[in-house]
């Protein structure tokens, strides 16, 4: 689905991402874990074209998308659930979902139904302004909005950020369900424990470079990962 090779991102003189390469195969959940400022968000933002990378290549189903405009990339089937939710607070839940389908010209009622089945609470609140929702509900709305574009690949930037543990569990079980329905997922998380449990494959990013990779289960057992990100390493 997605192949990233030697991706470089600079902000002014600072190299945020230094030549990272990874693959997101069809129908899998791939996760990038790492500390704050490691370059995870920059990577996602550059894939969707919000940030222009300074080097490297990004392939979506064998076509180069690096340097293309965001609306072109989105229309090719990638969506991003941005970090910090970014719902449109003054617009209703339904309007938010419709904006997610902005580039589509076909009938969206089926996808609306799908989002409402995944998130029954959004259906109850479809006429409410998004700003009045709780943090967890806003995150669900952000995910639902991204699903409205009917993407082949959904990228999520820190979906668990600032949510209560029980809500985090709920969000992750929904990510699993979205994956089961056939959507490929690229997940960026600081909550390595949860992310590695649902991931088929995982990459650890440190200081803008990939240092460890393996299946989710392998990384959960990896001593270094456990010490650095899970807080359960051997003392």
């Amino acid at each position, binding site marked *: 689905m997605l192949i990233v090779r030697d991706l470089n991102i600079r902000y002014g003189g600072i190299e945020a991402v230094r030549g990272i390469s990874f693959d997101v195969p069809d129908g899998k959940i791939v996760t990038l874990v790492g500390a704050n400022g490691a370059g995870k968000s920059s990577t996602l933002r550059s894939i969707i074209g*919000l940030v222009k990378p300074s080097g490297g290549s990004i392939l979506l189903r064998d076509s180069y998308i690096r340097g293309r405009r965001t609306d072109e990339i*989105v229309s090719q089937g990638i*969506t991003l659930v941005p970090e910090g939710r*970014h719902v*449109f607070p*003054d617009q209703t839940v339904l*309007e938010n979902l419709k*904006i997610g389908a902005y580039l589509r010209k076909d009938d969206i009622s089926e996808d609306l139904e799908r989002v409402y089945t995944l998130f029954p609470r959004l259906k109850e609140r479809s006429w409410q302004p998004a700003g009045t929702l709780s943090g967890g509900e806003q995150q669900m709305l952000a995910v639902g*909005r991204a699903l409205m*574009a009917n993407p082949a690949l959904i990228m999520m930037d820190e979906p668990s950020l600032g949510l209560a543990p029980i809500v985090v569990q709920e969000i992750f079980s929904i990510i699993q369900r979205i994956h089961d329905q056939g959507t490929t997922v690229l997940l960026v998380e600081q909550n390595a424990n949860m992310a590695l449990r649902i991931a088929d494959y995982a990459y650890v990013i440190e200081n803008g470079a990939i240092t460890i990779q393996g299946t989710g289960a392998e990384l959960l057992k990896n001593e270094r990962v456990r010490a650095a990100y899970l807080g359960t390493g051997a003392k």
Partner: protein
Amino acid sequence: MSANRKKYIRWILDAALIAAILIYLDILQADTTAHSYAITIIERSCIYAVAAVSMNLIIGFTGQFSLGTAGFMCIGAYVTGILTIPVKMRDQIYYLYGMAGWLHDIRLPMLAALAISALICGVIAYVIGWPVLRLKSDYLAIATLGFSEIIRAIFGWDGLGKITNASYGVSNIPPFANIFECVAICGVSILIMSLLIRSSYGRAFKAVRDDDVAAEAMGINLFHTKQLSFVVSSAFAGVAGGLLAVFMRSAVTSTFTVALTYNILLMVVLGGIGSVSGSIIGAFLVTGSQEWLRFLDKEYFFSDLFPGLAGTAFGAARVPLLRNGFRMVIFSILLMVVVLFWNHGITGSRELSWERIAGIPAAVREKKKRKAEAAERRAREEAAAAALEKEVRGQ
């Protein structure tokens, strides 16, 4: 109440409102000399409503603080004026410069001239949008304000006298056939803009306004969206300018100063940023109240107010405050009061609807109830505090 029945009632109320307006306009039209004052106010308000809604489209709905409205109105006014003045009057109007030959015999009906005004304004907005819309907030405001003044300077320039008649402006523009013509054109213009706002493009406008990062991540092209809004807004500002020229029967650059932009901005803010109905109400209120307050400009003698005093020394005394210009003092004070107490404008960012009007009594009751509850709670707390104090003292 079922949704269907609600819809039905809304339909009936809408139809009744439109019928009432038509009947009222028909009464006015039946005797235009007797009602000329009312007709003037209504036509002017309608034209300003188009300008206010067009400005609200770019400022209120798309969040781009553009202040070029007067400039586009100026273009619209001149284009409409030049294209509609009767051919046989042209030599007389352009006696100083002589009208350009290619233009001399082109005369169009008003609707066609308005459409061309809109087109020209749209194209100009498209072109200047390229550099200008890359700017944000204050910078955009300054750039568009500058553009507006440049337009005014160009239209007043001697070098273009053969086309624009320079500082003399265009006069003898044929008036509206009747009040319906003016109101209908304004109504249709506003309707087109509201339909755009309700479409998926309108949702994109609001998305860009509320959160540009999220909008872009949804695949909304920020620049194209802003440009679409700017082009449509400017085109309808041009229509409003053209209508204003027809209404005043002349187009002169001195009408289209920055003060005009501010006046329209005032209607938008007063009515409610991000509300079409608010802009319409704002346009009528500002235009109307400037007229209604005119009595404040007149000097009064006490004998005018109390005829019984006529002939006495007291009756000859003047009311000291009421004199020319006092109207604007009161107007400004009223504005401050409105802005202080309704700081989101009259309608806020929501549209005025029948449901909302019907909900007002309930909302007022709710507010009173909440106030009473708060007072009761405070009384209870005070009583509890007093009891506690007593207890502490007693020990």
